[in-house]
């Protein structure tokens, strides 16, 4: 089968669900962040795939670029938050943080 | 600039309770013998008194006087400002050697005293960190510079004598 749009979409879907899986099941906040990165990546694949196979010119690329930029900003901020949490609560496990909150 | 007699005088004035003894018939230098347990107080005085101002301890050496069954410690003091020197000696029992530490007054005494402990087993009271220094920490065969020291046959599985 000729590789086409659908193939890319399948990859992106798989990546997306794995990202969700990480977010749902992992306790470590940094792993959750990794899951988010996976989701963003899968979204980017979609953007670019559609931009390639759809008739959108380069806007898909541009949006992917923006997403990457935002992902960087998000990673920086989120990690800083995680570190701050770690500094005060001395753990990065989400459920423990939940318990410690109250 | 003061010589040993003057210093002895000053000491006697200041510490009437303590006994001091001057020995100066030796070929080279005279020295003052004092009590091992109050050497820290004497040292404080020597260090702080502006007339004496012994700001530096240049040497501290333990000696095993086995014939008299005693261990002694020699202190060589010097004032870099007034440029005079002094030798003090304390004598302690060989079986339970205890000397007050002067580490508080001259920081440099720290390792010297550790070395004396390591080599002779002289205990320096109030020393912050009295451990072996040159020999391995797990050396069990005693204090090597004592005259009756016997070297062990093995250390950690290594043969020691030739």
């Amino acid at each position, binding site marked *: 089968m000729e590789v086409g749009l659908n193939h890319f979409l399948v990859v992106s879907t798989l990546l997306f669900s794995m990202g969700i899986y990480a977010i749902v099941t992992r306790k470590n906040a940094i792993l959750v962040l990794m899951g988010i990165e996976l989701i963003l990546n899968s979204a980017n694949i979609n953007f670019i795939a559609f931009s390639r196979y759809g008739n959108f010119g380069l806007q898909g690329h541009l949006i992917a670029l923006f997403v990457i930029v935002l992902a960087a900003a998000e990673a920086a901020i989120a990690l800083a938050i995680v570190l701050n949490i770690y*500094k005060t609560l001395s753990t990065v496990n989400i459920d423990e943080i939940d318990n*410690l909150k109250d | 600039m003061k010589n040993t007699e003057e210093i002895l005088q000053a000491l006697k004035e200041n510490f009437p309770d303590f006994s001091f003894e001057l020995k100066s018939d*030796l070929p*080279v230098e005279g020295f003052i013998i004092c009590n091992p347990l109050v050497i820290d107080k004497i040292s404080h005085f020597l260090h702080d008194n502006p007339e004496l101002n012994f700001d*530096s301890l*240049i*040497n501290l*050496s333990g000696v095993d006087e086995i014939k008299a069954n005693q261990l002694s410690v020699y202190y060589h003091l010097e004032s*870099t400002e007034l440029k005079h020197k002094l030798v003090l000696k304390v004598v302690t029992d060989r079986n339970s050697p205890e000397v007050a530490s002067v580490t508080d007054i001259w920081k440099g005494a720290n390792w010297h005293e550790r070395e004396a402990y390591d080599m002779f087993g002289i205990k320096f009271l109030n020393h912050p960190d009295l451990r072996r220094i*040159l020999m391995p920490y797990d050396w069990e065969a005693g204090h090597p510079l004592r005259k009756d020291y016997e070297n062990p046959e093995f250390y950690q599985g290594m043969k020691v004598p030739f």
Partner: protein
Amino acid sequence: MINTKSSAIRTEEMVLNMGPQHPSTHGVLRLELALEGEIITKVTPHIGYLHRCFEKHCEAMTYPQIVPYTDRMDYLASMGNELGYAVAMEKLLGIEVPQRVEYIRVIMAELQRIASHLVALGTYGADIGAFTPFLYCFRDREKILHLFEITCGARLLYNYIWVGGLSHDLHPDFVRKTRDFIKEFKPTIKELNDILSYNKIFIDRTANVGILPVKTAINFGVSGPNLRASGIKWDIRKDDPYSVYSKFDFDIPVGKGTHGTVGDSWDRYFVRILEMEESLKIIEQALDQLPDGDVQSAIPKRIKPNAGHVYGRVENPRGELGYFIISDGSTTPYRVKVRAPSFVTLQILGELCKGYMIADVITILGSIDIVLGEIDR
């Protein structure tokens, strides 16, 4: 509820070992560094890895036989060690030695000082990362070793200065060769300055690092160039002259804080360079005044001092080297204790390093210029 017990953990403390095998601990020193991040919170030196039982040997040797062992303490400055022993013993025996002997001793001691400082400076450069000056220094040192070699046949451990005299007279070529050396050596000091001393990176690494205030130094008993770098003119060659040092005109360089604070590592480094220049001056004067005579006439046939004790000291390249010798009237000493300058100096390492970074430990350690041979003896 906030868990307070483990809050505020920023970085965990980490214990890092440096040595005994480490490229830059100048031998077999072991440093235990407690780190917080890269900041030193505590330095614990562990010594004794080269404890060669010098003092025990002294008690088993006759007086002349001790000389080769003194060589092996501060092996970078053997001549100085021998001189110290000779000075102490001559004080104990109460003998006078001929003038020629004294002059030759001074020449040798000063040449040795230059050689020793060259090693100190070279390895210091290598510690900071500049390897080339190290080899330049060793190249020049080799010339001094050659001078020693033609005189007494050995390159490093000489057994040259004996109680009451010298083992050999000077080699006939010695004076000429020494003058040649002085001529050649002066430009290389400048070269060393160009490539290392005034290098911006070098200054940044060393200035304001490891500041040693003079009060602390004296209290710890620090001596030699390290003390002088803290800004005090204290030199046994001037303050308690031995041999014939009182006959020479020389300066005592002190640290001035040119690039930082008085008593920082750069000062300690630079004082040594200045001292080499002063030593050259002394050697030149001594060569000019060198009297004739026999160098072995005063050597006692059998050394048997009266019972008593003596503390003799000289200014070694690393500071005040003292011999405390107790004699019981026999041909072997009853007890010899050596006041080794590096032994005393190394104690301040912990104080100096606190709060600095790992790299600075190397800088500071290099700048106080220790030799493990005399620390552990």
